[in-house]
């Protein structure tokens, strides 16, 4: 065995031992966010595992107000539970995932190519909370979501307000909303005030 090979074998063993020690100490819980090194390594691994031709794929969809609205409603219904309507990731789910749902308005997401964003939406990311939404090609919905992700840094309050109507609601929330509307229309008062 050459000296170089021995060196890398030792490094690999040390990394493996370190990983085991860290895992045993921290457990497999998600209360603590991943550290900077783990985040950097995971992103590098995700990038490395992505086929290069997928990274270079251009978005076949052209942005328009109608398409952005359609994508916003889709995002509100399918993605906002974790990512938030504004893409901040600041939701009850997003803050507790491991890794955390990213703030997609920031550079780490916005610097990804359209092809990379599409690949992530279409295929998901293993060992994260990101599911692969795409079922077949062509997947126009995922390309439209790529355009919406690009729009997130400049999304307006009116657009966010419009999206709220498309966020999933529990049966209890639907019932409460109906009771509030009845009250506004002159009906009886709802049984009690609620928090969400």
């Amino acid at each position, binding site marked *: 065995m050459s000296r170089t090979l021995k060196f890398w074998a030792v490094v690999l063993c040390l990394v493996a031992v370190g990983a085991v020690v860290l895992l045993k100490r921290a457990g497999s819980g998600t209360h603590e966010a991943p550290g900077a090194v783990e985040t950097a390594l995971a992103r590098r691994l995700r990038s490395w595992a992505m086929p290069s031709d997928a990274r270079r794929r251009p978005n076949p969809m052209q942005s328009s107000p109608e398409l952005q609205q359609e994508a916003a409603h889709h995002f509100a219904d399918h993605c*906002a539970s974790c990512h938030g309507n504004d893409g901040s990731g600041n939701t009850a789910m997003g803050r507790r995932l491991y890794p955390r749902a990213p703030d997609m308005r920031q550079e780490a997401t916005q610097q990804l190519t359209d092809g990379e964003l599409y690949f992530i939406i279409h295929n998901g990311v293993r060992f994260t909370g990101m599911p692969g939404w795409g079922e077949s090609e062509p997947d126009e919905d995922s390309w439209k979501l790529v355009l919406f992700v690009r729009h997130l840094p400049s999304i307006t309050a009116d657009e966010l307000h419009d999206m709220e109507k498309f966020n999933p609601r529990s049966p209890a929330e639907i019932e409460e909303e109906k009771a509030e509307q009845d*009250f506004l229309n002159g009906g009886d008062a*709802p049984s009690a005030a609620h928090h969400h």
Partner: protein
Amino acid sequence: MKKLVSVTLLAFLCTIAFAHEGMEHVVGTVDSVSGNSISVKTTAGENKQVAVDNSTKISRGGVAASLSDVQVGDRIVIHAKSHDGTLHAAEIELGKAKPGKAAK
């Protein structure tokens, strides 16, 4: 089918994670309006002060309205977020019913 199952599962798990996350619903009648603050007599009999700012969406019967449209006696539903001990209204809906008709 897989997409449907995923969406259903997410919808089931995530009822606390939506846009109205952390919002308090204040339901009652308008007791007074002073500056940028609305005093509400809630249906539970409490008095609540809610601050209004430029980002607050106000509507009556689905039509956009403004703070000056808020009348004493109006039925009102406010979705507000608590910050520094103060309730800040994100969204206000005013009742179609005429002011003066008491909330039951």
